[in-house]
């Protein structure tokens, strides 16, 4: 009987040890530059995540096959978040210990997870990148040293879309009516302040119509749009809401070439399911689709040629979201290069150093051309008081088979929009008791 109990005790102890072992973070990697990837490949937005993170990982593989970042190899771990905030935080905490030495920018591709990580990453001194999503007021780097809403934000994008429409209408939108049809969530509501400011400035009438998540029934909304008879519909949709909007617009007889979507409403996943209802529909984007970008073609040749590609469904190669994933990885790697230029070439960079790299990034067209990434990104130049770095988008139109660019880079109205961020950031700093850095003084010191 004692023997039995001892066996039992041993079994309990062993299983407890197993459990503890499984729960403790994985062992520290070597001196690689470490990317933590809280990504998602299942769940409601799994298809989008597969394309985006497929592109991201393929570029990292590509960098490694080309000898790393100035000789520093890149390592990464994925962790499935299912686009769920709590799981995202769990993933971050799990991979954090591995990333604590040489943290590369963290991309969550989820506004909610980014929000939850903003304070944590600042406390842990790890750079958080939010390319085209996330906490937009983090443009003000004086309050958010570790958060980077890179390339452009919802507000700047909305402003750029207004500018596009203005140019189309001979420079004035006075007296026009624009409907803003949005996903009723943090994502959809962010651009409202920008659009309200633009409507005051440009004297057009703005009608806001929310669509409840997930947006697969929009009869009432489009009925209202029909009554309002707007000149344009700007749509901030996500997932299933986009194709439903396109199909309903067709049914209600609203011309699709008067509809402009945000860049999350402008991928192949949004228009192909809508069939011919999507023809003529426009959306904002900062990267082109297709595999004729030299870098994408090279990735296809080098990485997929060697059988190391990440996509299981190779038809996603060269889609908007795939290319966007590549552009996110390019930007991260370039930030690390910038940091290396200051802190020592051929060394892995710490989170703090990468943060410096992200804040002093200067990605010119010439550099993009060297990388073969022309068309994947606008020029990006960041600073302490501008963590966005660009604010430019292009407008593309779906011709029924592919996306065609219909504009050059359009920059939003920075003088109008950036003060909104600063006001928000100031309020945030007050609520949280953060003392902002003095960007002007830091710039002078340099």
């Amino acid at each position, binding site marked *: 009987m004692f023997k039995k109990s001892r066996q039992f005790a041993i079994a309990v102890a062993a299983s407890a040890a197993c459990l503890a072992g499984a729960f403790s973070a994985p062992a520290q990697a070597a001196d690689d530059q470490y990317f933590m990837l809280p990504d998602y490949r299942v769940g409601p937005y799994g298809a989008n995540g597969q394309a985006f993170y497929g592109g991201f990982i393929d570029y990292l593989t590509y960098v490694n096959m080309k000898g790393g970042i100035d000789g520093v190899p890149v390592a990464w771990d994925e962790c499935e978040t299912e686009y769920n905030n*709590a799981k995202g935080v769990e993933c971050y905490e*799990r991979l954090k210990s591995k990333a604590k030495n040489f943290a590369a920018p963290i991309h969550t591709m989820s506004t*909610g997870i980014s929000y939850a990580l903003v304070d*944590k990453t600042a406390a842990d001194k790890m750079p958080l990148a939010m390319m085209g999503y996330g906490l937009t007021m983090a443009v003000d780097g004086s309050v958010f040293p570790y958060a980077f809403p890179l390339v452009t934000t919802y507000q700047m994008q909305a402003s750029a879309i207004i500018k596009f429409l203005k140019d189309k209408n001979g420079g004035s939108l006075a007296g026009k009516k624009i409907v803003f049809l949005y996903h009723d969530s943090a994502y959809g*509501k962010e651009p409202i302040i920008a659009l309200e400011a633009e409507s005051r400035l440009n004297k057009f009438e703005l009608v806001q119509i929310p669509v409840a998540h997930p947006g697969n029934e929009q009869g009432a909304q489009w009925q209202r749009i029909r009554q309002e008879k707007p000149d344009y519909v700007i749509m901030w949709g996500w997932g299933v809401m986009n194709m439903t909007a396109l199909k309903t617009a067709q049914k209600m007889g609203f011309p699709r070439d008067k509809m402009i979507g945000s860049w999350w409403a402008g991928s192949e996943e949004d228009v192909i399911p809508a069939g011919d209802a999507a023809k003529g529909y426009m959306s904002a984007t900062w990267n082109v689709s297709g595999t004729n970008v030299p870098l994408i073609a090279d990735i296809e040749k080098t990485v997929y040629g060697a059988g190391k590609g990440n996509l299981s469904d190779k038809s996603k190669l060269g889609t908007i979201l795939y290319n966007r994933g590549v552009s996110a990885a390019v930007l991260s790697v370039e930030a690390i290069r910038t940091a290396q230029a200051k802190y020592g070439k051929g060394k892995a960079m710490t989170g703090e150093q990468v943060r410096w790299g992200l804040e002093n990034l200067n990605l010119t067209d010439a550099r993009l051309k060297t990388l073969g990434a022309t068309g994947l990104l606008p020029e990006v130049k960041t600073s302490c008081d501008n963590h966005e770095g660009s604010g430019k988008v292009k407008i593309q139109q779906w011709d029924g088979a592919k996306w065609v660019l219909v504009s050059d880079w359009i920059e939003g109205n920075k003088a109008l929009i950036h003060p909104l961020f600063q006001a928000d950031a100031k309020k945030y700093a007050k609520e949280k008791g953060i003392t902002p850095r003095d960007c002007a003084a830091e710039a002078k010191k340099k």
Partner: protein
Amino acid sequence: MFYRETGQFKTTYAADQQIFPIRQDRIGILLLLAVAFVGIPLFASEYWFTAILVPFLIFALAALGLNILTGYAGQLSLGSAAFMAVGAYAAYNFQVRVEGMPVLVSFLLAGLTSAAVGILFGLPSLRIKGFYLAVATLAAQFFIVWCLTKFPYLSNDSSSGVISVPGVTILGFAFDTPRSNYLLVLSLVLLLALAAKNLVRSSTGRAWMAVRDMDVAAEVIGIRLMHTKLLAFAVSSFYCGVAGALYAFCYLGSVEPDGFSLDMSFKILFMIIVGGVGSILGSFLGAAFILLLPIFLDISLPAVASLLHLPFDNATVSHIQLMVFGALIMFFLVVEPHGLARLWQIAKEKLRLWPFPH
């Protein structure tokens, strides 16, 4: 032979009515508390604190709240996440709008606000029961989330509707490390769990159980139905509200209404079903099972896959994880429909006789 109460005589009513009448239980719980308050803070890593222990405690509290309503008072509810949202947003508003408001008072007021909303949505329970009531509480789930999204005032005019809460400081001490944060949550959850345990042993708890078992009979023996049911809704929502406030302040730091979705309500419901309906311990066991098992599978499956040289990519692992998780829930429900708490009870009965079963 180790777990036997032979020779433990109770000479006072107080001794007879204590929560843990058996000495071994008392020692066990003291050990557990020592581990929770001293052992874990000494040895656990930051990952354990922030990603496992704190969410576990918070969800255990929410499950406890639902267990009071569903397990003890027999009123099925699908609105737990919404009541958590009320708590989170109420605590945030009290904290941000009232200068110098102590955090603990905000939590308390958040609980009370949530209780008030709970009473409001508990009113239909006076006329409808069972599945119909579940549908009525479903209305709370959708209405509250809609309300928080609709009125910018509730999120202090945040342009996105997401609130980002200030840090927790009590009497000048900032709870900003994972360890202190854990201890704060642990203390609050423990206090509330103790209160709940005593509540369900009191006449209130007995009234709840009487209503649960047969409300007509309860009414005949003089229990006021309206009062009892609404009290259950209030207490349950209070617990969920405090859990929601802790969820926002001590766990995520920033929450949005959509985060408190129906999914989360279901998750809390599964916790009490798996853990044990009508059991305080069950709330904790259920929360541990539902929260920790997916994480455990998530970490161990890729390791197992690489050990066996299976060509799994991340997506496959996630799918397998969901399947295993679902299968395990079914397994437990088939083997022990009364939940993990009942298993524990059976184990105790067996231990009492062990090693001489006759």
